[in-house]
């Protein structure tokens, strides 16, 4: 962003963000390398604009409710491990907004994004400036070494490509995050995100066309592709996010366990089962997918249990 662009971004933010949110984007921990970028290319102004957009979606479109934010570490490295879904993968952005606005002090979740996105102009630049990092093991290790809060979807792109009847049935977790957590002694926070897997019900996947286009899947939904790009606008499913107590595998396993494929697979399965249990539990408590009628109690900032809802 040019210097003039940065000035305009701040003017925008002053008008459109609440005083609390504005203070949060001004004070979050940002390691400036000298020219307004952090070591992974995040720019405070771009991250702020992304927050502005996704905060509006978080609040008004998806009406996100969350529980257990006190389980997210306020300092030091941690890996947040949620389920992944929704065809258009904005579940990560909504969770990042949720963590940013409910955690004190605010922290940016550095998501590990599939590398295929790095090849797309505009998309790759936007993701990088907003604080996301493309999925290479070295990038994850560099992030945890620097004490960052990392968000990682062990289901990978196959998670967002689930058909509607497969919703909330987790795909097999990749094991890379366990190896890194053991090697660098990093806690893992299991997260369940309810709502994402109904926002764009995928009825079929045109796999040959996807291969031709070089994308992980080509979805057929009730609205896409016959409504064109507008068909990708997600339905206003209500989001419920739960953060579980951190799993500190490194307390029971030495760093060398990261080289044992049996241990690593077992621990990845353990995290997968935990996230699945959280999803099943949240599904059993949910009364409606959209929940458009019930007004929400305004509890800004959350209560002593770490629960938060958006004001109506």
């Amino acid at each position, binding site marked *: 962003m040019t210097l003039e662009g940065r000035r305009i971004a701040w003017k925008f933010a002053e008008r459109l963000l609440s005083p609390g949110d504005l203070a949060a984007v001004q004070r979050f921990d940002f390691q400036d390398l*000298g020219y307004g*970028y952090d*070591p992974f290319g995040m720019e405070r102004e771009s991250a702020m604009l992304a927050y502005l957009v996704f905060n509006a979606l978080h609040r008004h479109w998806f009406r996100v409710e969350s529980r257990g934010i006190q389980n997210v570490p306020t300092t030091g490295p941690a890996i947040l491990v949620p389920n992944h879904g929704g065809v258009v993968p904005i579940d990560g952005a909504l969770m990042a907004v949720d963590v940013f606005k409910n955690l004190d002090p605010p922290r940016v979740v550095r998501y590990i994004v599939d590398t295929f*996105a790095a090849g797309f*102009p505009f998309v790759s630049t936007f993701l*990088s400036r907003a604080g996301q990092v*493309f999925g290479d093991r*070295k990038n994850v290790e560099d992030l945890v070494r620097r004490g960052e809060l990392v968000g990682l979807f062990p289901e990978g792109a196959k998670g967002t490509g689930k058909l509607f009847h497969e919703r909330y049935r987790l795909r097999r977790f990749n094991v890379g995050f366990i190896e890194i957590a053991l090697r660098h002694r990093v806690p893992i926070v299991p997260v369940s995100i309810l709502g994402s897997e109904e926002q764009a019900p995928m009825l079929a996947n045109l796999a040959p066309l996807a291969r031709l286009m070089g994308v992980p899947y080509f979805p057929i939904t009730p609205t896409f592709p016959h409504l064109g790009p507008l068909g990708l606008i997600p339905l206003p499913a209500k989001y419920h996010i739960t953060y579980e107590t951190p799993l500190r595998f490194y307390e029971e396993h030495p760093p060398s366990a990261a080289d044992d494929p049996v241990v690593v697979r077992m621990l990845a399965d353990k995290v997968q089962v935990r996230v699945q249990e959280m999803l099943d539990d949240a599904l059993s408590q949910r009364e409606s997918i959209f929940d458009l009628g019930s007004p929400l109690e305004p509890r800004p900032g959350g209560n002593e249990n770490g629960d938060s809802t958006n004001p109506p």
Partner: protein
Amino acid sequence: MATARTPREPGAKGGNGEGRNRPKHNVLITGVSSTAGRHLAMHLAADPRIGFVLGTAPGPRPRFLAGLDPKRFLYLPSDILRPRQVRDLFHGAHFKEHGIDTVVHLAFVSHPNLKGRKVHRLNVEGTKGLLDRCMESGRVRKFVFKSSDAVYKLDPSTPVYLDENADLNHDPEADQWVQDRVAAEMICRSRMDSAGMDVVILRFASIVGRNVGGQMNAYFDGRFVFKALGYDPLLNLVHMKDVIEAIRLAILKNTGSGIFNIAGADTATVTTFAELNGRRCIALPEHLLEVVNWAMRRLKMTDYYYSVDRDRMRYTCLLDTTRAREILGYAPTRSIEFREYRGLEG
């Protein structure tokens, strides 16, 4: 290949410091007429830990080397493409008399507009011939090769910070400038396990500064700075004084053979650097950049070669300097003096 071997320094008895009582190093610089060679020769000739500096390049002594102390610096014309001249250099009286124990190889075609068989011979076969002469001499204990971050392969899955073990660009379609560097580096790497001589490769980020020349200077000094539409990768720029300091440390420190990434103090995007340099970035669709760059070169509006940096204009390429920091003790200290630097501070 980035692991260090048992170090061998003249008179080394442990430690890797630049201690006072350690014997002085006597250095041969090839390509001393290049910008880096000139700065290095002047710097080393003034360094009390360096005994003597022998500088070589084809042709008569450049004027800018005339002022150096003749007791500490000597220029010898020599073309590393001519085996007889190289042999004469290594068997000559000056080489033996001054006890040359370190060779810094800078004789490399620095501009991508020079291409072809002769350039390849200088870059690759010249490096090979020089390395072989150094090993045969039995006197040279360290060979320092100045390389570039252009050797790294860049694609969407490349990490933000590349360490010395990252994949190199072996693409046969890559520009000759890149291919020659990769080939010369591989020759150096293949000699790293040789007995009696350490081979140190320094991979530098883009060197930028006044009167320095090079790709990034040409890019940011062009009348228009064109970039790929939709991309704005991070770049790291290194100051010439940091380059010289890294080479100096590679000469003096007892590191053994190894590869070191050397980055500078300035990291920002293409757009930001262009703005700091008082230029406005113009974004064009990627497939037009090559054509526009060709036209600008034909019109003498730029010396920049887009084909060399095609991938760098899309993907971030920053260097992980952990090894250089921990083993060489290198840390960048100088920032590039941009024209509009004060504008940013304001």
